[in-house]
């Protein structure tokens, strides 16, 4: 299959069952090529939330098994979240490279919505801090609002790509974010870490298992 001329092997038909398998196998191969980057993206968000929020909780909870200085936990959280955002943008822009069609527009709008909405959460928080919101309250505001935005974006993704994994993940993230705000701070950070970050990781594994199963046909 590597000669520049047409190889006779390529041109030869197989029996009906093998040809059917060849066609469906190729389509599965194409869709797994498009799904694989999503797995990396979900996994990165899982690690960022799990480790980042856990570091913040360890820094602020006095009864935690051990403590981490906030001077370490803050930057760790920031680097992980910014890293996940950058990775998502890079992966998102490479995913549909070389492909044209209406779904490419949907994908681009969706990708940009993540950045715009995340930045809006940050700006609104800043305006509330400027208006006198105490630090403890901001520790409730940021995770919960950001979690709500992330959950709704997964629901939008579920609608766009008719994907049930994103539907469940979106609902789960919204439930965890809202419930965590009732837990008070800093316990809400532990909620976001274990249940939110854990949710992303379970979602990653679910997509992996599904694509593996599909590849085996």
């Amino acid at each position, binding site marked *: 299959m590597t000669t520049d001329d047409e190889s006779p*092997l390529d041109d*030869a038909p197989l029996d009906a069952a093998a040809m059917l398998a*060849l*066609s469906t196998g190729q389509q599965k191969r194409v869709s797994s*090529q498009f799904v694989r980057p999503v797995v990396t993206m979900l996994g990165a968000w899982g690690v960022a939330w799990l480790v980042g929020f856990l570091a913040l909780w360890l820094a602020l909870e006095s009864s935690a098994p051990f403590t981490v200085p906030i001077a370490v936990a803050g930057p760790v959280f920031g680097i992980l979240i910014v890293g996940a955002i950058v990775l998502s943008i890079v992966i998102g822009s490479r995913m549909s490279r*070389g492909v044209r*069609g*209406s779904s490419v527009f949907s994908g681009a709008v969706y990708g940009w919505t993540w950045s715009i909405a995340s930045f809006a959460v940050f700006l609104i928080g800043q305006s509330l801090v400027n208006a006198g919101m105490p630090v403890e309250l901001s520790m409730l505001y940021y995770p919960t609002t950001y979690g709500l935005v992330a959950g709704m974006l997964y629901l939008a993704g579920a609608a766009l790509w008719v994907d049930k994994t994103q539907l469940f993940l979106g609902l789960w993230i919204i439930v965890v974010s809202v419930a965590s705000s009732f837990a008070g701070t800093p316990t809400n950070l532990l909620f976001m870490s274990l249940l939110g970050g854990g949710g992303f990781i379970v979602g990653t594994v679910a997509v992996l298992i599904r694509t593996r199963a599909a590849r085996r046909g």
Partner: protein
Amino acid sequence: MAELDPVIHAQARLRIMATLATLDDDGSIAFPRLQELLDMTAGNLSTHLRKLEDAGYVAQDKAFRGRTPITYVYSTKQGKRAFEDYMDQLRELLGGTP
């Protein structure tokens, strides 16, 4: 039972049509990306695309990114129908309902 369409009934061309069928209705794919998804050499892919083009199943469209020309490949309406018919015929041959 009608004969299987000889244009599609070849491994390489069936894989090309199957790949193009995964695109949006109005979608097309750049030649290098298609080559990557099929794991075929440029020469081999061109040869098979020409045969599909001669049958009216595939069309190409040149676009420019800056000054670099990019060829986009897509399945025509006729090509989409032919691929669907071919797959139905295969399933029928195998005893399933089309």
